[in-house]
């Protein structure tokens, strides 16, 4: 019986881990800070008016809703669903792109919506444009690995007794939720945003173009690229692990610039 309870506990904890939130706080706030730096004066004024502060102040709000009984249905909004061809075509409520489009319409037609509806729409957009660029929140039809899995990475150290390389287990979701921030300790979201702008400067214009559906398709391509050669239980080298910094930076820069582009377009 004890063994059975232990098994159930492990399964439950694993499921919980695989369903972990998208970006961590640092990720969401970095994306919001990067967007803030790129808002037009008109968009910045509207954001300040609605939020009473900057975009960062509303970046984590949507995560609080999923924990409330009355709003727990919003938990499904955080994922983006793509068809087998990698296109975003869904119209179901439980999808990040659908919710971004709904909220963008509220902000575009502000006169027909209450101030509170606008505030919630803005906070939802800030959060979901970030989630849309979180690789483990992209679900692709026919790609079961996008539901999450565990693998191992070599730490680079060897066991003192056996001499064997030490590898530790990690969730796919943990990597893309912000594990790579552990390589760059002590940063504020604003400083991290400065770095993302610096390291991907040449892509800024191109990455700021398009619609949320096109961004979703782009993230589908990025997700498939990261899943190449991956499978549950696989052990990746320390070098492969370190190289995950670069796609992580891509996601942050794209999300920040695209969030600014969307808001600038809404408030032009």
């Amino acid at each position: 019986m004890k063994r059975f309870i232990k098994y159930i506990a492990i399964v439950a904890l694993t499921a919980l881990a695989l369903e972990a939130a998208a970006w961590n706080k640092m990720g969401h706030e970095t994306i919001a800070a990067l967007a803030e730096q790129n808002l037009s004066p008109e968009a910045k004024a509207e954001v300040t008016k609605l939020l009473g502060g900057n975009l960062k102040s509303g970046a984590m709000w949507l995560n609080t809703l999923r924990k409330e009984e009355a709003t727990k249905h919003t938990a499904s909004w955080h994922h983006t669903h793509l068809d087998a061809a990698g296109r975003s075509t869904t119209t179901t409520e439980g999808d990040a792109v659908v919710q971004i489009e709904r909220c963008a319409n509220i902000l575009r037609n502000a006169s027909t919506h209450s101030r509170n509806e606008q505030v919630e729409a803005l906070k939802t957009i800030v959060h979901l444009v970030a989630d849309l660029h979180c690789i483990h929140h992209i679900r692709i039809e026919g790609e079961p690995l996008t539901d999450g899995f565990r693998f191992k990475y070599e730490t680079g150290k060897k066991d003192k007794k056996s001499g064997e390389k030490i590898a530790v287990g990690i969730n796919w979701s943990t990597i893309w939720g912000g594990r790579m921030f552990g390589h760059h300790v002590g940063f504020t979201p604003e400083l991290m945003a400065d770095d993302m702008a610096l390291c991907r400067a040449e892509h800024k214009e191109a990455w700021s173009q398009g619609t949320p559906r096109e961004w979703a398709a782009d993230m589908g391509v990025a997700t498939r690229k990261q899943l190449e050669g991956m499978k549950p239980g696989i052990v990746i080298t320390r070098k492969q692990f370190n190289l995950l910094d670069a796609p992580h930076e891509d996601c942050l820069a794209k999300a920040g610039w695209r969030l600014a582009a969307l808001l600038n377009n809404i408030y032009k």
Partner: protein
Amino acid sequence: MSIQSAMAWGGLGHSAIAYIAEQHLTDEAKAKCHHYLKHSLAYDSSWMDHWRNVEPFCETSYWHCMKGDRDNKVIDDGRSAPLHIVRICKEMKNYKRLSDEQIAINLKLLIHMAGDMHCPSHVSYPGQGFKRPSLYIKGRKYNSHAVWDASPAYLHPGWTIVDYQRNLDNKSAKQIKQICKGTPCDWAEECILKMRVTGYIFDRNAEFTKMDEATIEKMRRLNDEQILNAGYRLASLLNKMFK
């Protein structure tokens, strides 16, 4: 804390040193560093820790420390951080002849080693062994190495690198000039001499949370001074390199 203690100065110490350095770069040095690194100095400050077990960088795994002799002079055992700093600075005199990739690697090594040579736990000298006590923080043991690797985090809980810079970076131009006077080997000698006293700051196996404020203040002063000196000196090396 576990991530912090795994590396020299922890990631926080290295980031703080690099961030302070960045505030003291000339426009030209800053532009060159950004051009080659594609990042801030702080972002790449722990690169050397993350790549130390990956070929072709495994050799650099031994370059994080330094040993002093009885007169506090750096011993050249082929592994000494300050001597590799000197070598890299010499190589960078003709940096335009190097590939962009090699320049970026040299900068990442330099940023990290300038920090490491100022980290109390990365300095050793004859007769030091028994003087290096462990410390407990809330019951968890930190060995003599981890004590100082983790110190930037536990001596200033919650500080970001911006807090480090705002609170510590307050020396006058004259004072900074004095701190940066000399060569990396001179700085190393000063650090070795200074570290000879670190063993006496706190008692062996002391519990940090029960330590008296005067002792904590001594630890904090050493931590802060080493981070600040490292930042100023790193900036001076880079400014000379790219003038």
